[in-house]
């Protein structure tokens, strides 16, 4: 049953990277519980535009939980309090009439705020450039059965490949560490025959890039796996540690 609720929003406003920023309070009236969180923000923004005020900037794209664009910290939880859900897939039926909602951008030294709730996540792109790929010759695709991949292994690689690169793991980590993101990439490719040839170089290069971007260190708090909208497990962090040990001490890669 669709209902109409009224909310008080405390939203982080910041004009640009140099602006110190502050919280602003908005009343969100007549919000349908069938709306998604982002649709609720759209309603707030339409009202702001009609009043001639600056709308709240937030990142979004597919709005179906697969692109990794959206994400803000809602009442202290990246993507909100619902497990395994991106912010765009969080619906207003999970809030109660009269609730106060505090909305903040992802906070990390490696994710500087661009405007309001929009942060620069290009550090994750730099991590991908450091090793989140396989090098193959172009040309016609090889016969699929030349590289057999057992089904359970493909499933485990897919568990890691489900990462949409939203950065919620960094936002949730008390140390702003990017270990879950990096380990998902390392693990995804290390589990597949196509990724094995470059596995040692990849893990060392990605760890170096992770440190250079200014992310923190993993303390095994497990906040990341509890927050990840794709529910990626810290099993992959253990695999990164294992791959890094093997690569660091047993391979000729530096």
């Amino acid at each position: 049953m669709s209902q109409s609720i009224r909310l008080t929003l405390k939203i982080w406003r910041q004009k640009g990277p140099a602006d110190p920023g502050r919280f602003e309070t908005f009343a969100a009236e007549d919000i349908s519980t069938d709306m998604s969180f982002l649709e609720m923000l759209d309603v707030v923004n339409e009202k702001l535009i009609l009043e001639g005020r600056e709308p709240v900037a937030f990142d979004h794209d597919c709005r179906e939980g697969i692109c990794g664009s959206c994400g803000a910290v809602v009442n202290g939880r990246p993507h909100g309090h619902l497990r395994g859900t991106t912010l765009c897939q969080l619906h207003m039926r999970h809030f109660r009439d009269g609730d106060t909602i505090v909305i903040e951008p992802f906070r990390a030294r490696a994710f500087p705020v661009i405007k309001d709730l929009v942060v620069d996540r290009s550090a994750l792109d730099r991590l991908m450039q450091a090793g989140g790929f396989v090098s193959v010759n172009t040309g016609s695709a090889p016969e699929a059965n030349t590289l057999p991949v057992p089904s359970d292994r493909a499933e485990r690689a897919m568990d890691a490949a489900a990462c949409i690169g939203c950065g919620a793991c960094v936002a949730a980590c008390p140390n702003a560490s990017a270990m879950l993101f990096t380990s998902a990439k390392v693990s995804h490719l290390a589990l597949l025959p196509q990724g094995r040839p470059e596995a040692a170089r990849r893990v060392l290069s990605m760890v170096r890039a992770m440190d250079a971007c200014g992310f923190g260190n993993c303390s095994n708090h497990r906040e990341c796996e509890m927050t990840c909208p794709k529910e990626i497990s810290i099993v992959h962090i253990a695999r990164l540690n294992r791959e890094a040990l093997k690569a660091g001490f047993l391979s000729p890669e530096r």
Partner: protein
Amino acid sequence: MSWLFSLLGSSVGKKWLMAATGCAFLGFLAAHFAGNLTVFGGPDAFNGYAERLQSLGPILHLFRAVLILCALVHITTGIVLFFQNRKARPVAYQVSAGAGGRTLSSRTMPYTGLLILAFVVFHLFHFTFVDKASITLFERVVAAFRRPDLLALYSAMMIVVALHVRHGFWSAFQTLGLHHPKYMPWIFALSLVAAFGTAIGFGALPILVAARM
């Protein structure tokens, strides 16, 4: 050699150092606990154990040197990690609500670590670097635990050590890449056993000594 330093200086390398040195301390705790049990054998058993330990000479010095080296690495790396992690989030959240991953034990690691350091220094000057000629170690231990303030300090500190062990134990496995779907539930259970073992095994000893002797 430069590859080794850059490897151990990386974020994962620093965690390996914490895990490996932490494992050494867990081994030390187990040995210390076994030694402690001799106190229930009476003055002769306990003093005899202390004397035999001293008579090991160079082996004892080697063990001490390794432990001091581990402590230096564990403390220095821990402090570096603490400040790097603080620096990684310069602006704090207005509302901080965990998703259920953090525990009291994981949250307090740097602080329990520093408390343990202070306690270890106190403990060494209390029972190890002392005059053993005019008073036997057994008498010294019994006299110490008859004082309620020292009794409370020693027993309370064991809860602090247990908290540190609870997160450190399983964390060491995870950091060294030893995560396996079959064994991880055991490792979690073992970290609880190690924590309760530390709290009860070490914590109950001063109370039992004070009550019985």
